[in-house]
């Protein structure tokens, strides 16, 4: 039996009628057409599906859509302010932190939670934090550089 839910999605109130087994990532991609959130492994290993629920990063392939009822959900599409990219997005572009780009939205949403809490996070903290995000292209070095640079920019250092 479908269940009616409503929640905040990137700042707007939305509602949907969902089957209990529908995953949050499926709701985001198929109902709301927010396809920036990717399905990589579907086993909560790769982190391509990371979004924020009530300010915390979660793997949206391992959360039921019904569990978003009443929550505040933020996806990669909610980061830029119109044409103005978020400092993390700018830093990923600037530091060549992506090649194929598949892992990038999850990588950025995961790093965002860390930097919102600690923009000064050092390299060791960033490495530990990104354990749940896999990238098969970059070798991670440029991702670390980008997250450090974004942290500096977010704490007022400017880029």
């Amino acid at each position: 039996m479908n269940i009616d839910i409503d929640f905040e999605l990137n700042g707007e109130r939305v509602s949907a009628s969902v089957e209990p087994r529908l995953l949050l990532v499926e709701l985001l991609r198929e109902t709301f057409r927010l396809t920036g959130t990717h399905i990589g492994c579907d086993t909560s290993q790769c982190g391509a599906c990371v979004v924020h629920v009530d300010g915390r990063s979660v793997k949206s392939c391992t959360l039921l859509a019904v569990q978003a009822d009443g929550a505040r959900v933020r996806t990669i599409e909610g980061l830029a302010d119109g044409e103005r990219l978020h400092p993390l997005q700018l830093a990923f572009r600037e530091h060549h932190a992506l090649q194929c780009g598949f892992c990038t939205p999850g990588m950025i949403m995961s790093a965002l939670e860390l930097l919102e809490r600690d923009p000064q996070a050092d390299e060791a903290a960033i490495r530990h934090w990104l354990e749940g995000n896999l990238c098969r292209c970059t070798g991670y070095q440029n991702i670390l550089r980008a997250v450090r640079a974004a942290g500096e920019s977010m704490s007022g250092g400017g880029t």
Partner: protein
Amino acid sequence: MLPFDYQRAQDLDDAERRLADDENALLLAGGMTLLPTMKMRLAMPSTLIDLNGIAALRGVRTHADGLEIGAMTTHAAVAADPLVRDHLPGLAELAARIGDPQVRNRGTLGGSLANSDPAADYPAAVLACNATIVTRRREIPADEFFFDLFETALEPGEIVTAVRFPPVARAAYAKFANPASRYALAGVMVAADGDGWRVAVTGAGSCAFRHAGLEAALAREFTPAALDGVEIDARAFNDDLHASADYRAALVRAMAQRAVARLSGSA
């Protein structure tokens, strides 16, 4: 995933009633194990009863015997909690290394214990710290809680509400994590217990257990070297593509030695 019904429990009475009404219903805590298990159809519940709306199950409070941590408290909340960091620093350190940040944001203490995954971290902590698992029906000492692979003392319909930890100032956890899954290939928690030490092992056997030989050796001499000659019987250990039983036995010794080294300030 096969179809199922979803119900949000209003409170514990409600959750218990719904659970009793349907023998194929399961409780949904963090879902970090249950939902992947359902995708693989290793679990096919008729109904999920979601505990996430019950505020009373979350949080850390002081208790006559130490700290009481609500069953639905997430790993991230345990790791960051000032009371836990003061009274059980070893537990905060363990919680900060479970899975990855997204798992720690959703996964819960009660869910991890009730599931008794052979490679989960928390079972080692409750055994080493001599904690008590509190349910709606009784209080279960950690020593009597873990039976086997995914099998615990919990009866059908019994709900874990909290875990009580005595204050343990000196405890350390060392784990050798599978580099892909971050699950413990072997994890060892060493915790002070009066004049002696409790040593709990996870990842190596079918469920977490205490190791009498390691405890006896540490009671005689609290140094990493004291564990060199202790026999670690690998016959019942897990043996799979990730690690052989003998390798796990070697890791158990090495992790115990790392934990001891950290506690004695020699690492």
